[in-house]
């Protein structure tokens, strides 16, 4: 009997000592052995840049299916190419938002927070991060209007899972301010600590500074319809601060045929979807001007790059209605994005020197800002827009004589300055369709003839924005409702703050 009591006592003792230590090592066990709790910015920054460039998901839907077709750079007969036909596909329309906030914005806000938390806010890395941040947000707001900005991307940082939407007007004010402050932190000739981890400019602070000012110029001009005086004032600030000076200053990221985000997402799309063609509008514009870019941007699907056989596919048709346009229709006879530009390893451009020259031309024309005439900037822009294509491929080189021939045949005409400048801007932003679409909405140039596809939701007008993710109604309902009541219905036809009629 005594023995069993002893045993029982021992067992109880064993159990109680077990329980006292039973969560020993649990804190270390619950740390993922395959991950780290911190990451140097040199690894995170390239990811942020590549996210900004975009992945196939949102590029296919946001850049190509919607933006490129609405500005009539591309066209497709397929009905899922909703932008071609002004149809509303909610998940395509929201794809850019759906992908960018959880990727680009989360990453950039994390880098920014970590720099601030580490007290490194005087480091030029901080300025570069903020410039990239403005680029990322500007694309989102230009597609959707009012968006979460001041509270966005901070789900972990401050636990805000339902960020409020900021008015686009306020976002612009802050972005311009951010660019101005960031540019002031950078010094020409110095290399930021990021070094080669900066896969845009290899840490060249001068280039970042010029990019910041060029971006400022872009944002400034964007406001021209709604607040011309601010637009002029910020344009002057940008130009005085120093904008891009040559194709060497172009902000772009080189891609490669790797896996995931290192690839050019336009290229990934063209590989997966061979239905898009160059729009008839775009091809005719180039053909009308004997533009050498035509056979760089496009070729027949079998690779034929003879200038004369190229033809654009009109927007707004589907596979059955197209026979009304061409009774012997064969998709093989229409110009597709060429092998020079449709690869997974070609660069993705955020802003080119050509765009900057066109903006300088417009600023000179409107407000006589900066040095040089509108014409000289226009000519420099056209030249840059043709010569920068060599960044796609050495085979995509346009000679200076071809440029001069083009300019001689179609010289700058001050009486239609804004139209000429912005039509060239449109031609120069092929494949950077977010920018092409925003600038078209701002300027209305080139004058595009809308399509009127049966069942379109815009009453035959070109959409003015894309729609918010439908799940914002459920996951962020109060903020969403506030945004809709202030901006207008969450529809493709609603105009955003800077896009006044």
């Amino acid at each position: 009997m005594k023995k069993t009591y002893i045993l029982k006592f021992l067992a109880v003792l064993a159990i109680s000592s077990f329980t006292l230590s039973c969560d020993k090592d649990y804190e270390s066990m619950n740390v993922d052995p395959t991950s780290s709790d911190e990451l140097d910015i040199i690894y995170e920054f390239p990811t942020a840049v590549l996210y900004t460039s975009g992945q196939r998901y949102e590029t296919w839907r946001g850049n190509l299916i919607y933006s490129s077709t609405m500005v009539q750079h591309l066209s497709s007969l397929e009905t899922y190419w909703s932008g071609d036909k002004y149809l509303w596909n909610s998940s395509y329309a929201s794809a850019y938002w759906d992908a960018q906030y959880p990727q680009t914005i989360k990453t950039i806000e994390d880098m920014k927070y970590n720099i601030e938390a580490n007290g490194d806010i005087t480091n030029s890395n901080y300025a570069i991060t903020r410039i990239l941040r403005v680029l990322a947000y500007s694309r989102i707001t230009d597609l959707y209007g009012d968006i979460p900005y001041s509270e966005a991307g901070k789900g972990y940082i401050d636990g805000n899972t339902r960020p409020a939407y900021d008015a686009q007007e306020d976002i612009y004010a802050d972005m311009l301010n951010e660019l101005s402050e960031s540019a002031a932190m950078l010094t020409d000739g110095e290399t930021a600590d990021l070094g080669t981890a900066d896969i845009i400019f290899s840490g060249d602070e001068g280039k970042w500074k010029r990019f910041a000012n060029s971006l400022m110029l872009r944002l400034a001009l964007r406001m021209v319809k709604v607040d011309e005086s601010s637009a002029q004032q910020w344009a002057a600030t940008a130009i005085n601060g120093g904008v891009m000076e040559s194709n060497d200053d172009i902000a772009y990221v080189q891609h490669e045929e790797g896996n995931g985000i290192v690839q050019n997402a336009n290229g990934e799309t063209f590989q997966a979807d061979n239905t898009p063609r160059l729009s008839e509008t775009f091809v005719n514009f180039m053909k009308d001007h004997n533009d050498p870019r035509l056979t760089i941007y496009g070729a027949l699907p079998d690779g034929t790059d003879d200038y004369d056989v190229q033809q654009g596919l009109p927007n707004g048709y589907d596979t059955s209605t197209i026979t009304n346009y061409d009774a012997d229709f064969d998709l093989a006879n229409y110009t597709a994005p060429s092998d020079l530009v449709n690869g997974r390893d070609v660069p993705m451009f955020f802003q080119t020197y050509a765009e900057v020259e066109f903006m300088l031309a417009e600023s000179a024309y409107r407000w006589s800002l900066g040095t040089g005439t509108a014409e000289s900037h226009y000519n420099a822009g056209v030249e840059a827009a043709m010569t920068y294509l060599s960044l796609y491929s050495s085979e995509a080189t346009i000679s200076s004589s071809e440029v001069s021939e083009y300019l001689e045949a179609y010289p700058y005409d001050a009486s239609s300055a804004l139209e000429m400048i912005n039509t060239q801007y449109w031609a120069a932003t092929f494949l950077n369709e977010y920018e092409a679409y925003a600038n078209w909405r701002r300027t209305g140039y080139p004058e595009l003839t809308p399509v009127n596809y049966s069942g379109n939701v815009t009453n035959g007008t070109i959409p003015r924005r894309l729609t918010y993710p439908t799940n914002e109604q459920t996951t962020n309902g109060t903020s969403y409702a506030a945004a809709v009541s202030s901006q207008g219905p969450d529809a493709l036809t609603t105009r955003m703050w800077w896009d006044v009629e």
Partner: protein
Amino acid sequence: MFKKSLGLFMFCFLLANILVAQTKTVTGNVTGKDDGIPVPGVNIMIKGTGTGTSTDFDGNFSIETAVGDVLVFSAMGLKTQEVTVAGENNLTIVMATDSEQLDEVVVTALGIKKETKALGYAVTEVGGEELSEIKQANAINSLQGKVAGVNVTGAATGPAGTSKVVIRGVSTLSGNNQPLYVVDGIPIDNSNLGSATRWGGSDYGDGISSINPDDIENISVLKGGAAAALYGSRASNGVILITTKSGKKGNGFGVDFSSSVQFETINTDIYEFQKEYGQGTDGNAPTTQEEALSAGMYSWGAKLDGSQVVQFDGVERAYSSTGDNISRFYHTGETYTNTIAISQAAENYHIRFSATDFTNHDITPNSGMNRKSFSLNAGMVNNEKLSVDLNTKYVLEDVQNRPRVSDSPGNIFFIVGLTPANISTETYKPGINEEGTEYRISSSSTYHQNPYWSAYYFSNQSVKNRFIGSSTIKYQFTDWLYMMGRAGIDQYLARITSVEPYGTAYKPLGGMSEQSYNVKTRDADIMLGFNKDLTEDFSLNALLGANNNAWSQEITSLTGTNFVLPGLEDISNVDTKNYDYANYKRERSSWYFSAEFAYKNYLFLNVTGRQDWFSTLSLAGKTSPNNYFYPSVNSSFVFTDAFDLPEWISFGKVRAGYSDIGGGVNDPYQLNLTYGITNTYAANGTSTPIGGITNSYLPNSELEPFSKKEYEIGTNLKFFNNRLGLDFTYYSNTTTNDIVAISTSTASGYSSGYMNLGELTNKGVEVLLSGSPIKNDKFGWDISYNLGYNKNLVVKTDDDGNPLFPGDAAYGVNSQSGAVEGLPYGAIYGTTFVRDDNGNIQYESNGTPTIGDYEVIGQGIAPWTMGISNNFRYKDFNLSFLIDAKFGADIFSGTSAFANYYGASKNTLVGRENGLDVSGVDSDGNVFSTTLAPSEVDTYYQQLYSIAEANIQSADFIKFREISLGYSVPSSILEKTFISSARVSLIGRNLFFLMRKTENIDPESAYNNTSANGIERFGRPTTRTYGVSLNFKF
């Protein structure tokens, strides 16, 4: 009674006079004392040896014995009898009911066997024979309709798919709400190794499907918290205890062989797509091959008129219905199961070995599975003090080409179901072009695969090698004190190879992945037990124990895209490769106690407690607790033993229980932000590693365990000599502080995260009525009816009352299923028609209905589940069947949405001839009516695709679930053979619906096992199963 005692006395007297033993054959018959009918399955053993036999269906037996031997007759619920063999060659044994064992003994938490009358909660036991006769690839599907309050749904993903079991309603808003499966005392892993989402994919099965139905002795379902409380946090969704077969004391040496063959055919009643209009668009048949290709799945062509019309391959064929493509494309499925089991048992040891081969050729061509299961259970007892038991299982599972479901890429049924009426899937053959690429049947979408390409050139193979083993050592210090240790392991290696072939339309260069899983569960218990009568009236049965459970999962995956050499499907033959490695670990430590007080063996009180510590809730610097204490108390009062009651009440008890169980976070590493190196960037000339945040969920460092409090009351009543029984339970539970995976605004940077916010309740009743209206030696009829009603209510989702959705896992088309405050879990939320105050539908100017906001449009989980089973016995035949039903649920039909879009369903016929009249209001609220021309009706129906409300159907059904007709060869025939028992049965499963409201889909056709039911999207089509099974014992 007196007579029998006298008889016994006489035997003993005779025995004393016989001194010389002689061998002889004794035959006899056993009947029950109460009803005089033969008792089958009585164990008869020669005392002191391992030799024995059992009675056949008619209560007859025959045994080689010797004069002087003592025969021990024993059976569950009957008083054991000993008879000494004397001169007689024929024995008539009458066995009395054992009042001590009136209630059968059931397996309860921690594997402890208890008399049901002592239980203050509901436990349902299902015998292994119910699972082995009509075998399911996933044995747990056999519980469908059999247990009140247990809602079982097999996913529509083929035989190797997952099974979803929800007990007493959904109790947590995150997690999968699946019960804990405990096999021979060891909790096993039930992980799902991948399932389809809204974007398509395949169901890679669950853990419980490894358990071989032929090895299951019984399944005990611990439904409520009180029953399961000793498992603590793991029991919040109920516990299913599976005991596997072992050699039975008294059966001696035995060989058991069973074989079954089952055939599966499409349930053609379900699929009724329109066969009046053919391929085309805008009311026109294609005129060129290109148009035909582009028309693809569109059935918006002209009326079928038998004229010659070109098809996708350029061949002109009659524009008329080609009949049923579904039956044409799919084969008859075949399943063969063969099991051999050898067992031997004696007083002090038992052993059973079994081997099963399960081979299935699925209805989908080039798809099927093989599972080989080996089981070895053994045990020994040493001088009544020390006992050791060992249970092991080894399972090899090999599944070829699990169907791709949900979205269209590679989804066979999507195409076969939607193929226009004038096209025969035969013309899709062979699915491949001469150059080795997909033979395309549609150019309208690259995601519409030729089904022969999907079946023969897509591939996925999953192989699982699994070992489950446990050993138990028990030492009985005294007759009232014992110590027990139990340790077990469940480990498997799984490998999944999945190929999207070179030449696939949406992936021209193809791609593949290789994934390996190494999943390990280790579980150990130690407990000290005390079991003693403290006074004459009062006894105590107590235990104190500790448990540790560790789980780990390592996943190595290699994925590659763009094959370099076409046709070589090897992971090294790709131009871009990606690899990933994940290592998940979690552990739980616990101590627990249980004390059961019994007064006069009719009043019982059981108190338990368990405290769990969670590694998944531990983090340096965390201030909220990482542990929780889970108490329970339950009581049972057998009033028929306490009071003198009329004879017609054979048994009666009332019971009540209360528990607080709950849970932590299942997934580790959810508390802190983590980073990793994710890729390499080399485009600028130097190869640079790049990385970022790796959390997919928003991390929350202050998570703590949630709580689920439940009480239940119930009664068990038996009347008229146990001929009529009622088991009734009412329960009510409340989960608070639930850890919810909330959907966050993507603008926060995360689309979801875990928070301690949720609250939900379940209230319900469970009723089991059983009766034996006819019971005599020739004919017997047993009937039982079970009913479960569960009223679930989502009280709180998050601070703002937002609906919560599991995301891509429960997505239809513009619809999803999840938690909406004030409604039961599983609310289906989707786009709606816009209506004015008078209910008039709003139309766009083109006559299509306006797409409205997301609203609740249905309820995905059935509150009412029930089953009725009948068993008729006539001499050596028996016929049993099960009908089960679910009511009160809806299902969003993705098939309906796409069939609207492509013009495949019958409802889209309206208006094709003369135009479609619509009337309602316009966007300004003015009266609006128009007629869509026949060429434009497609725009109307295509708009219905986008309006989820148009694609909701009632999921109510009554299914004729199972039937079996069996014949047991009488022992009089087998007597002179070496066969001791032989049985043959014809079986059928899911033969037909007695009631169904869905169109073109099975009301039970989820494409994965997420908790949020009610979303269907082109799973594998529903089948009927019929077959034969044979069982021999030697």
